[in-house]
């Protein structure tokens, strides 16, 4: 263990230069997010991830945001265990009928002001699962959505670009 730890002290970090915030995401946020909310949430955001019915592909890439290459926490973005602590709900999947109530309750348990980010193609409109008896639709059909990050699943880089737009939106206010 000593060798591994010492080496980490002397070698260069793997963490990569942050990408620029996604332009489309900035535009969507400017239209949807109130200036007052941006001011209050400031530059540090607590994120609560909710899987509302995904295939778990999106979860894998959201997990990757925490690895040494992307290191989400350096931007002041961190995942929290409870919606009560959260500023942002990061929601994946088509919303299944079986998860609809749980998502609504999670949304209601999150204090205002709050933002909802819908992650992945399925979260936009149900994706390839739309039309099933078991699917309620996209995230926007159940709770108000402020930002969409598309992809199947979105890469960690795409996720990062979208989430950085939240911070850029905050500082622009």
């Amino acid at each position, binding site marked *: 263990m000593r060798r591994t730890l010492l080496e980490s002290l002397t070698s260069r970090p793997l963490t990569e230069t942050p990408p620029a915030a996604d332009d489309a995401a900035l535009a969507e946020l400017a239209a949807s997010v109130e200036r007052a909310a941006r001011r209050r949430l400031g530059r540090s955001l607590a994120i609560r991830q909710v899987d509302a019915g995904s295939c778990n592909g999106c979860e*894998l890439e959201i997990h*990757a945001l925490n*690895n040494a290459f992307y290191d989400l926490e350096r931007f002041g973005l961190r995942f929290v265990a409870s919606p009560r602590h959260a500023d942002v709900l990061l929601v994946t999947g088509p919303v299944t009928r079986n998860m609809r109530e749980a998502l609504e309750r999670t949304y209601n348990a999150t204090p205002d002001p709050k933002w909802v980010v819908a992650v992945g193609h399925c979260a936009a409109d149900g994706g390839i*699962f739309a039309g099933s008896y*078991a699917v309620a639709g996209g995230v926007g059909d159940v709770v108000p959505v402020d930002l969409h990050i598309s992809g199947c699943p979105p890469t960690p880089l795409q996720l990062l670009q979208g989430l950085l737009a939240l911070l850029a939106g905050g500082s622009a206010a």
Partner: protein
Amino acid sequence: MPSLIDIIPHGEPVDGHRPCPRLIVTADEWRHAAREVAAGHATLFGLWGDTGTVPTVHMAIIEDATGEIVVISLACPAKKFPSVGALHPPAIRLERAIHSLYGLVPVGAPDARPWLDLGFWEVRHPLGARRPAPAERPAYAFLPVEGESLHQIPVGPVHAGIIEPGHFRFTAGGETVARLEQRFGYVHKGIESLMAGATIEQAARLAARTSGDSTVAYGLAFAQAVEAALGVEAPPRAKYLRALMAELERLANHFGDIGAICNDASFALMHAHCGILREQALRAADACFGHRLMMDRVVPGGVADDIHRNGATLLRDTLQHIRARFPRLVELYDNTASLQDRTTATGIVAAELARQFGAAGYVGRASGRDFDARRTPGYAPYDQLEFAVPVLTAGDVNARVWIRIREVEQSLKLIERILAHLPDGPTATALDGGSGGNGEGLGLAESFRGDVLAWVRLKGLRVARCHLRDPSWFQWPLLEIAVEGNIVADFPLCNKSFNCSYSGHDL
């Protein structure tokens, strides 16, 4: 040893079911097969419902040693069938799902509560004779637990981490878990109903999104089922590329799991370093096949695209890097007593239960079940590649970590061999639906988690019916048993060492 055909001697074979036989049986023969499975003469491999002219139930059974598979089918004109779960507990959840989805009643079943249907759908029996669901959502009775000073801890469906949703109901006496009961279905998307009538291309995309972490394995199982049904074969180069993707998927997932298990024992250093290896494997996959998870890269008939030339170079460099780094992480795991203290003798699955449930993957192999679908019944190109299947007997979290470590080593070897022996030639065969037949096919692929079974019935080049069985069906119930008597704080550790799929199970 009697062969499977001897176990079900009188069934009437169905034409066009490949590669294994499917037999139409009577209720008596169905009961006989259930007794044989319960007696341990064969392993339950799948149990699912079907619509058609007559509602039907199908049961797949396999002989572990030879890999011989038989599907038996029982017509249920009266919408009921003799319960297998009454004799053989691993069938109970599958039968509850059949009842909820198809409205077919397992007669004599020990548990009549719904499964997957949580009361939120507008219809009951969505895959059978649909009827409107009652306006009032029926209450769900969890199993009773009696004793002094017991308390309940309900967890989920929304969990504290970045995980899929499911409900866990713990009953604990102090710190010790007296009973865990799971309730799933939250991510049920109705994949089987979306499959019915879909083109093969659409259906393949659905199969690839049944459980995102096993997208290659699902793509492969589905493709093999379709190819069997159509009687076509993927070209040799495609088979090698599929195996390359499957092993890369296994590597990435095992790295993620080994790190995450250690993280749940609060040993973040392993998590950080395994996370780096996982990311590097995913980047190599992206460079080789244009998608980090390699989604939709395995298609019926072959693969969507050949390996990118510069990708192969990056993959070789990545393998070399992993070979240099991984042994040190293994040493770190092995030499950290505080970590071993958490993983050793925690969450034990008895060998007898692993056998009875036909537990696949690292869950089975850590408890002495020497089974790997790549070897038995086996599929190309693994018959031409030498690899070992690690088996341990301790059955604890530590054993499940070590199985993954050994499998990483095997996968590294396999990828190197595949790269060295990649045959030339085309990467896909055209699918021919010209025969217009109603072919049926069964496909099998060993995901990182265990064997994925895919069964299809085609109508021309469309899917009439498709069933996908995730290995988690036979692993989740064992988790309930494994945590009994452990402390509540060790549940995340046990759960992560199983890493079952919610989405693959819920469909």
